Structure formats: structure tokens, C-alpha cells
């Protein structure tokens, strides 16, 4: 918390001027390649390229699967974040480490792991096949792959918000006779809604960009499993213009999503890491109490 208190608005920052130069270089590293790609766009052909049947199908599939994955992330991620932030049980730290693992795993590793779980010969896949459920090569496989990589974004984001919000309001509600279910519904969730929203948006963005796990686990078939990143990867083989045009579409969607998530209500909710969030997301009156 100390670091947060030092960063009150209008305070002396003390950043040496050369830091700005290096920071500018860092910014350029991200912006310059994007600018170079925009410069490569064949504008005359842009509309036909991005509205071709295969492109629209891929974009539609990407949006649908990402929405489904985000929903699944919320359903599974909110309880996980609650358990991690509020609960107390042996192996909690271990659980947190495992939940965060997809953040740092190469997506292709995630794909291989999913394959050996839900694939035909996999751990669960064999039983599922007996039940008549086949996941491999289906849109469900895409959603699973996306959820796998996107879940940590929601969990980390929400856990940070939960910790920042503290448990005092909940304690008060409980002393007034509210049952745990009521507290969760009426106090906790409304309190952390901004964090949940930004976590969901980040999960959506991550799902939209998912490539490696999908390619390894779900395959690539137009309208079924070929999402926009896979379509770009394939178009690049024959039609560089189409690949660039589609990349720009994906960049535009991503920029919109990030812009939406950072334009939080009143305060900018920080990135996916809870520790950063603590410094900004606490309402001022709460900070004085702490």
C-alpha cells in the first residue's frame, strides 16, 4: 500500500528527463510496427478484401467464440477469484500459480495439453466420446482453447479488485443479518463490477487473438474452427494484401476493446495485474481509513 500512497495526484514525480527518451523508444517499438502495417495496406482493395466471404465468416466466428469464451470465463472466473481473494484454504497459493499459468505458457503448449485432455484419445475425451460428445474439430474446441488462455485475465483482474475493495462492507452486511449468498449478490458483486467488466473485456480481447492453442487443438475449417487469426495465417500464404487488411481489422477491434476497458467509470481501471490496480481503484475515502 505504501507505494500507492506515494503516488497521490499532483505529487512530485522526479523522473529524470532521459527516462522519457527510453520510454519513447519503448512506445515506438509497439507503435512503429503497427504503423508500418497500416502503411502496407492496399486501400484500393481494402473493402473487397475484408468483406470477402471467408473473411466475414472468420470474423463472425471469432466474435461469436470470443463472446462465448468471455461468458465461460465469467462463470468460472468469478468463483475462482472469490475463492482466491476471500477464501483461506491449504494450497491457495498453489492454485493461484496454476490459474495464472496460461498467462506465461506458450499457447501451443496449452493446445497440446487440451488435446490430451479433450481429444479423442485424451483423458476426458474418451469418456465424452462414449457419451456421444466430440470436441475435437468443433467450435466448442475453439471456445475451450480461448477460455483456457483468457481465464487468468479475468481472475487476476477481479481478484485485485476484490482485495482492494476489502471485506468491510461485506462484514457490515453480514452483521445486519444478510446471508452469504445475499452479501455476494447485493454487496460484493456490485462493489467489484468495474473490475469484473474490465476483466471480461480483457478476456474477450485475449480470446479474439487466440491462435496457437486453437491451431493445435481445434484445427482450421471455414465457419467451424477457422477464426480470424487462423484466417490471417492462411491468407498470408497466398495473398499478403488480404492478410494485412485482415490484420488491420483485428487491430481495430483490439484497440476498440482496450479503449473501452481503460475508459472505466470515473477512474481508469488498471491492467490485468491486481497489485497495480490497488493504487488507483480504491475510492479516496476508503484509502484514508486504511
Amino acid at each position: 500500500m505504501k507505494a500507492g500512497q506515494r503516488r497521490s495526484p499532483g505529487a512530485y514525480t522526479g523522473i529524470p528527463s532521459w527516462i522519457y527518451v527510453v520510454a519513447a523508444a519503448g512506445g515506438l517499438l509497439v507503435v512503429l510496427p503497427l504503423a508500418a502495417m497500416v502503411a502496407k495496406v492496399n486501400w484500393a482493395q481494402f473493402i473487397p478484401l475484408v468483406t470477402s466471404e471467408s473473411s466475414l465468416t472468420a470474423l463472425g466466428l471469432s466474435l461469436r467464440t470470443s463472446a462465448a469464451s468471455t461468458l465461460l470465463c465469467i462463470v468460472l472466473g468469478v468463483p475462482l477469484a472469490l475463492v482466491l481473494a476471500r477464501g483461506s484454504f491449504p494450497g491457495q497459493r498453489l492454485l493461484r500459480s496454476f490459474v495464472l499459468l496460461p498467462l506465461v505458457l506458450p499457447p501451443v503448449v496449452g493446445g497440446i495439453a487440451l488435446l490430451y485432455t479433450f481429444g479423442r484419445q485424451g483423458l476426458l475425451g474418451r469418456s465424452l466420446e462414449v457419451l456421444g460428445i466430440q470436441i475435437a474439430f468443433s467450435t466448442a474446441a475453439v471456445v475451450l482453447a480461448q477460455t483456457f488462455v483468457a481465464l487468468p485475465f479475468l481472475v487476476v483482474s477481479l481478484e485485485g479488485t476484490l482485495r482492494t475493495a476489502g471485506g468491510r462492507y461485506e462484514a457490515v452486511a453480514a452483521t445486519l443479518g444478510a446471508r452469504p449468498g445475499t452479501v455476494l449478490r447485493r454487496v460484493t458483486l456490485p462493489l467489484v463490477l468495474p473490475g469484473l467488466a474490465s476483466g471480461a473485456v480483457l478476456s474477450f480481447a485475449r480470446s479474439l487473438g487466440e491462435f496457437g492453442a486453437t491451431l493445435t487443438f481445434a484445427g482450421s475449417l471455414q465457419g467451424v474452427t477457422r477464426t480470424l487469426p487462423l484466417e490471417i495465417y492462411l491468407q498470408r500464404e497466398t495473398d499478403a494484401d488480404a492478410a494485412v487488411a485482415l490484420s488491420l481489422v483485428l487491430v481495430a477491434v483490439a484497440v476498440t476493446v482496450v479503449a473501452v476497458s481503460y475508459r472505466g467509470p470515473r477512474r481508469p481501471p488498471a491492467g490485468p495485474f491486481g497489485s497495480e490496480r490497488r493504487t488507483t481503484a480504491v475510492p479516496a475515502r476508503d484509502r484514508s481509513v486504511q
Partner: protein
Amino acid sequence: MTFRRLRIAALLAASTLLAAAVSGCAPGPSGNPAASGTPQRSGTLTVFAAASLKATFTRLAAEFENRNPGTTVTLSFAGSSDLATQISQGAPADVFASADTRNMARLSDAALIHGQAVNFATNVLEIAVPAGNPASISSFADLARPGVKVVVCASQVPCGAAAESAEREAGTVLKPVSEESSVADVLGKVVSGEADAGLVYATDVKGARGKVEGIPFPEAGKAVTTYPIAALEGSRNKELAAAFISLVAGSDGQKTLADAGFGAPPAEVRPSQ
């Protein structure tokens, strides 16, 4: 004990040194087409080769280094179109070996090829099935049976184009469950048992060493893939590049390629060695 071990280690080290010294001083093996004439070659050669050439070119590169002490061959394997794009964007390569003539033509049109490309191998499609052939596939027509999960390459990549012409030739319309962007992805789906069958190259079946079974089919003969190799205009060691190409196109290279399941190049453009 430790003392004895040390002595053995020292002995081993000494003999290795001796062997290295002897082979370093000795002239290259006789009857070596690549090294004859100019025995003193040196430098680093960067070879960009199609992913399907990984096993053979790794072996041939080691052979090249053995025959030409002082040279180092650096290999980069990827999809042919990826490599062609990298080269046209200025990647420092000396030799390019493509899995199709189209990507070689792309570089040739852009004047990035030094001299003439040489066709050095061919490859045909085979049906790959998981070990045990669970779906009992025996012909190309079997792939169209309902319920059979077939994986092919997308038509944008060479193996997919070959699969399409095989389909036309057989008059069978496939309903693949996935159209992958590389033949390695197709093979992976078959090896893992996710797919009942996949269309891959004969060399992929051989390279999978028993993890998949290969079923040749006659229609594949109409969709033969030709592999060209060429030195690049941007190469700083064109003589070394030419020597490597001679090794690949020469009898030793051809034997290594044939062992891996590649077919002989089309006769009319075969280089006079």
C-alpha cells in the same frame, strides 16, 4: 576410483583431439564431387529449406561440413512461402530449397535467384492413418465415407493444392474436418489419433517412423510436387552455395533423399553432374 575415471576421461579427450587433428589435416575423401577441384572452402553457409526437408538436409549439411572442413552450414526450416517472404524481405540466406516451384518462381521473378533453379526431388501424397488404421481406410474413395474424419492441407498451401488435384483425379469429394495450414499440422492430427486419416507427403509418413501408416494411392501420381533449389543473389559466398547445391543434386544427395522417401526429379531438368 575417481583417479581411474579421470585417466579414462583424459585418454578419451586425447584420442578425440587426435582424431580431430587427423581428420582436419587429411584431404577430403576421394571421389567427392563437392570437394574436388577446390579443397579449401571456408565460411558459413545459410540454407533456407522447406520444412519437409528437415531430416535430409540436416544430414546433408553435416556431410557438407565433413567434406569441407572450416565450413559451417546454418539451416532454417519453415514453410516454403514463409521462407520466400523472409528472403524477399532481405533475410540473409545463401541457398533456398522450396517444396514447390511456385515460391521459387516468386523469388525468380523478383530477381533474387542467382543463376537457374535446379529441381532436385519430387514428393507425392499418401494417405496417413493412425497406427492400426482404426477406420479401416484402404483407398482414396474410403476417405469420403461418412463418419471418417479426414484432415487435409488448405488449398492455399502446396500440400493442399496437391490434395485438391488428387480429389479431382479420383472424382471423390472430401469433406475434411479440418484444413490445416501446414502438412506438419495434418500429420500431428493423425499421429495424435484425432483424425482417422490425413493427406500428407510420402516422406512425412516415412519420417513419422511407425506412428502412422501410409497408404499410397494411384491418383497421387497426377499431383507430384517438385522441389527446386537455387543460390540466392544476395549470397556472399556463391561458390559455397553452388557446392552445396551440387551435393544435394549429386548422387550422394540423391541417395539420402531417396532413402527418406523422395522421388527422383523430373528427368529433363536434371542437372548434368
